[in-house]
């Protein structure tokens, strides 16, 4: 019966490996086109993921195979008694140093991806100087505030700011930065297609930058429990060309300041203006 159990324990790692190998072909992989990230940083994150996946897959297959083999041998052991070994210094050293080195390599390897994503010093300068919009999360919607065309985003809302709800327009091919805020509880700004996630903390304004590399409409979801309606904080990020983006802003301006008589009643900038950054 022991052999049957060995097969039982062998079946699961095999099933795991097969289903993982199948995953990219049946749509179980990363979301959107060909499972490829829609941002350059996202592609680097994916690459890091695959490196870790390869390392862990080798370790997984190796350890499970050795485990099943050891069981197989143990089930067929015809000796009167098992071998009396208490340990082995050399082996302990080998299996501490090798994983240690691999882990250290992984730790150091990923540092610059993290730095590029989160350390302010490494943010793209153009994006920092001219933030695209302010994103405010609240129960249960996303609000966006853009500066008026030709102006810069100010810390405080301005009379000529443009607003939209649950639809963020972004030009592709250039890094953009948003200022992330929350009005009430904690939320999290999650763009699965771009592999971007950042919590929105009440009381803090957190800059997030990303660079979309292909046009499309992507889901923006909330990844931090924010109440009963957490699941329905449904918004879209529409990535388009610079021209289309400007046209959108113009359209938004017209809609927002339409006075009912065919004129655009664009107001002057308010008195208090304190540039972000």
């Amino acid at each position, binding site marked *: 019966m022991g052999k049957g159990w060995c097969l039982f324990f062998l079946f699961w790692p095999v099933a795991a490996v097969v289903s993982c190998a199948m995953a990219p072909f049946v749509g179980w992989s990363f979301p959107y086109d060909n499972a490829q990230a829609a941002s350059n940083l996202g592609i680097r994150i994916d690459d890091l993921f695959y490196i870790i996946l390869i390392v862990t897959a080798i370790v997984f297959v190796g350890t499970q195979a050795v485990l099943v083999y050891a069981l197989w041998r143990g089930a067929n052991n015809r000796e009167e008694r098992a071998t009396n070994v208490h*340990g*082995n210094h050399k082996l302990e050293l080998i299996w501490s140093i090798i994983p240690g080195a691999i882990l250290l390599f992984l730790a150091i390897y990923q540092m610059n991806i993290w730095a590029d994503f989160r350390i302010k010093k490494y943010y793209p300068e153009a994006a920092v100087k001219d933030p695209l919009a302010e994103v405010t999360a609240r*129960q249960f919607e996303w609000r966006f505030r853009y500066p008026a065309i030709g102006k810069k985003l100010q810390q405080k809302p301005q009379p000529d700011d443009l607003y939209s709800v649950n639809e963020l327009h972004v030009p592709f091919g250039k890094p953009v930065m948003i200022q992330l805020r929350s009005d009430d509880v904690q939320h999290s700004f999650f763009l699965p297609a771009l592999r971007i996630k950042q919590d929105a903390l009440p009381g803090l304004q957190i800059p997030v930058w990303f660079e979309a590399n292909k046009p499309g409409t992507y889901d923006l979801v909330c990844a931090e429990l924010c109440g009963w309606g957490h699941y329905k904080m449904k918004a879209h990020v529409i990535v388009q060309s610079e021209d289309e983006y400007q046209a959108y802003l113009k359209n938004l301006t017209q809609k927002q300041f339409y006075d009912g008589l065919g004129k655009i009643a664009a107001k002057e900038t308010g008195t208090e203006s304190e540039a972000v950054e």
Partner: protein
Amino acid sequence: MTTLNPSPTGLQPILNPQAHHAPGNFITKYIFSTDHKIIAIQFMFTTLLMMIVGGVLALAVRWQLAFPWESMPIVGPWLFAAEGGQISPEFYTMLFTMHATVMIFLVIIPILAGTFGNLLIPLMIGADDMAFPRLNMLSYWFMWPAIACFGMSFAYAGGPAAGWTSYPILADLAQAAPGSGTAQTLWLLGVTFIGFSSMMGSINYMTTIINMRAPGMTFFRLPMTIWGLFITAILQAFALPVLTAGGFMQVTDRLLGTCFFYPSGLVINNAAPTVGGGQALLWQHLFWFYSHPAVYIMLLPVMGMVSDMLSCMCRKPLFGYKPMVISMSAIASLGFIVWGHHMYTSGMNPAVGMAFMVATMMIALPSAVKTFNWTATIWGGKVEFNTVTLNCIAFLSMFIVGGLSGIFMAAVPVDVYFHDTYFIVAHFHYVLFGATLFGVFAAIHFWFPKMFGRMMNEKLGKTHFVLTFIGANGTFFPMHFLGMQGMPRRYADPYLHGYLEHLLPMNQFMTISAIVMGFAQILLFINIFYSMFFGPKAGRNPWNATTLEWTTPSPPGHGNFDFIPMVYHGPNEYAVVNGDKDFLMQTEKECLPSNETVATNTLDET
């Protein structure tokens, strides 16, 4: 005790073993008992009862994910007549909050420390009871106010709806969520009560292990089980006060109008709180400073128990006793400095994230060492495939998966994507269900004869194991794929979002697996209750194991030992020639052929 002259067999008769506390009548014997074995059994039945509750909650969560907004079978029309039997999103948040709360605070932590800590510590170190038997009794009875608080919070006050992590502002301000009124305060009170219970336990365990070891039982002769429980007790003693303090701060925020955790300028439900000046991030630091070590509180005792059980079932000494102890201590001490890896996306200083990342990566190392040592223990052994072995191997196999997926979590940039998705859910269910609960199942089968004097049924045990293992893998492995596809946790209806629409069939498959797994647990309960009364009687040492508890009668009477055990060597002395046996109990000094004696001595050098 130390002045006794050991007899050659290592046995010293005790004149009247029951003199120090005699069992009295039924109530003092079985209800308000100060006997550690009875308290262990009380803990076991309470936690198993709670496991049913937590499991049913999990099935309700899974029902919603497989058949969203459809009437729950059987209980639906009765519970929510007004909504046509369907789970509302409010109720859904309460379901997963309570599932986690019950499973962590009322099942896994108390079944390890409470049941096995109580049962095994005095027996394995050769003591007659815990150092503070009354404190021990109190630690059990403090579970009930906690259960009452959680129960009231769920059933009467509307249910806490901020997740088990209880992040402010959602948890901190009553108007932030529908169920966040009195329910959240009661929930915090429950956590405080269960914290008191754990604290009393951990003080008791530390004192007992340090002070009450039998003559000859040096620290490096302690069975691995005791090491696991000892290090866990230390972890608890240092980490738990932080959670209790944090919980207390949240209670004062809620009741007294302090504002530790919420900043100024919030607008919640169209109303602005009048005060502010706090910081939500503070809670996360305090919370994870406890709750990360808590992961090891839920794992280290099992690691210890599995070490002993595997060694016994393979008839081989544990491979690398000292490296195992060292890696356990390394996991525990590193466990204190890696809490920040739960907060990579939280907005804390990104430079700190790097430090946490390196420390987290390194914590995988001692875990790897342990895995290799367990495998090496099996290598060259004579494996007997009984229920205990099978559950131990399931522990090992699933711990490997959970450990490896942890590396993705440690890697900050990858974690940015996986944080709060189902990948995390897969990871911790592989560790907490896959590893911990399979270890617990093994331990129940292994020490059942010592608890009740009877053996458990093998056929039922194996059927339970097979169904649970299939169900667990079918439920938890696809969660990795859900995470990869970006499905966030705690969504009542993920199919609302375009990119998650196609996940319904996968979720339905998982729910069916979960139902299989849930129903399999009925076999465990049948087995326990049947075997308690009708199982074949067990002798003192049914497994031919080596540690001290197997020298006592099954079940042991008050005062445990009918002799004072003398300990001559480490645990797990299998595969040695000892008359017609292949093992050497810790109390046995002689019968070692000279060449085997050398092998035993190397134990102290490894």
